[in-house]
């Protein structure tokens, strides 16, 4: 499903973030991406939804070849890859339901379908009662739930979560984790970059440890493996 072969990424400022990385992730997997700061986790994640393009090597996501993909076609890739960010990235001028609806309007779904699906996903993340609020009226955990609702609205095959619990207190973090588990149970591949050793050690999944721009450890049901 997601396949990277011999990938290198060198930034214009001379820093080599990814240095010969190979990995294959199948449809429906739940993968943690761990590793120290600056090891290339973020670049690795960003290459999956083509915010970054590798300098060398191949990246394939589903039928998309991300190295050959033209800039004009990138939006179509992003409709198959939902992304949840540490800083949520909600549209501040749109309400909760409008934020979720936006991702579906982009695809050109009809208003009835959108309305139905928006309520469905907001119900799933437990925010059905806050549809008319604006992001700044919500708590961090609630905003992250909206972001997740938006990411799954178009039923993507892959959901990428870049430190989704990074800004949240432990209890809220567990709520978000339960949500991701449930989404995974519906068959969506989940790739989650995290620093949260507690979560990684208690809810065991495949662990990819990125160090010096390579996969240093690829272990099914592994531990976090770094000092908390």
């Amino acid at each position, binding site marked *: 499903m997601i396949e990277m072969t011999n990938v290198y990424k060198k930034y214009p400022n001379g820093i080599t973030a990814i240095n010969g990385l190979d990995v294959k992730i199948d449809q429906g997997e739940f993968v943690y991406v761990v590793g120290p700061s600056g090891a290339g986790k973020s670049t690795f994640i960003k290459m999956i939804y083509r915010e970054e393009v590798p300098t060398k090597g191949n990246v394939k996501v589903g039928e998309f070849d991300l190295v050959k993909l033209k800039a004009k076609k990138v939006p179509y890739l*992003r409709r198959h890859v939902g992304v949840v960010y540490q800083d949520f990235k909600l549209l501040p001028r749109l309400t909760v339901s409008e934020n979720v609806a*936006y991702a579906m309007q982009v695809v050109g779904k009809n208003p009835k379908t959108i309305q139905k699906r928006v309520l469905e996903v907001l119900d799933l993340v437990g925010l059905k009662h806050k549809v008319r609020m604006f992001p700044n009226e919500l708590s961090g955990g609630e905003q992250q739930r909206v972001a997740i609702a938006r990411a799954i609205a*178009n039923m993507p095959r892959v959901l990428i979560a870049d430190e989704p619990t990074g800004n949240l207190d432990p209890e809220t973090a567990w709520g978000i984790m339960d949500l991701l588990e449930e989404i995974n149970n519906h068959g969506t591949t989940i790739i989650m970059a995290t620093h949260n050793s507690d979560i990684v050690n208690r809810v065991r999944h495949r662990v990819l440890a990125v160090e010096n721009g390579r996969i240093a450890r690829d272990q099914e049901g592994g531990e976090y493996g770094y000092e908390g």
Partner: protein
Amino acid sequence: MKARTFWRHIVESLKSIKRNGWMTIAAVSAVAVTLLLVGSFIAILMNVNKLASDVEEDVSVRVYIDLAAEEEDQEALQQSLEDIDEVETVVYSSRDDELSQVIGSYGDEFGLFDGDDNPLYDVFIVNTAAPEVTSEVAGQAEDLSYVADVNYGGATADRLFEVMATVRNVGAIIIIALIFTAVFLIANTIRITIFSRSTEIEIMKLVGATNWFIRWPFLIEGALIGFIGALIPVSIISYVYLSGFDTLMTYLSGTYFALLPPNPFLYQIVALLLTIGVVIGSVGSSLSIRKFLKV
């Protein structure tokens, strides 16, 4: 684009105008002030230009007919004057008509020259198609037979035409400079309002919106801001011009000067201002978001 999507873009741009509150008001007032300046200057300069043309049009060539000319000679002369390409009209004014004009302007004492004592010539008053060719026409008329003399104000008229040409050119330059200023100011204001929304555009790109899907609402919003901004100067200028036109025209009645009539002049200004507002608003906003679309 699907009609549904287009409708969505319109609704979205209206929402954005409302939710941006002060930013919208700032942009609208910038457009309004700039266009008010442009509109007023155009109205004034175009009228100055019109008055200049009125002055020029009043200049005509007077062709004095030789006293020896018989009636058929006069007719032949009139024919050859009319045959000159640049000549628009040729009006005959007999020596008696000329004398009564002199009496009218300078007083009854000149009545002494009435009848056979009249020292004046019969005259053809020639109007040219364009003021610039006046001296040329005068030169051609001088060579015709039975012409005693030709007069068009000579150096004075030439000087007048020069001054008028300068007035016109300066006016045109000022108008062009003002329109450029307006374009720059409006585009800049819209840029600033969009700058504050760069993250918004980035997020839209990240959830899979195509460039045009993002661009349309911004384009419509810019056009609406430009349109609303233009409505204010349009109504001020219309009101002032209509009431000013009536007042000034009473003063000018009886002279050969006239202001440009509101129909069609005022409508042209209105159309121009609305066009500038809408075009710059929409083009300005879609150009401004361009650099944020590269995510």
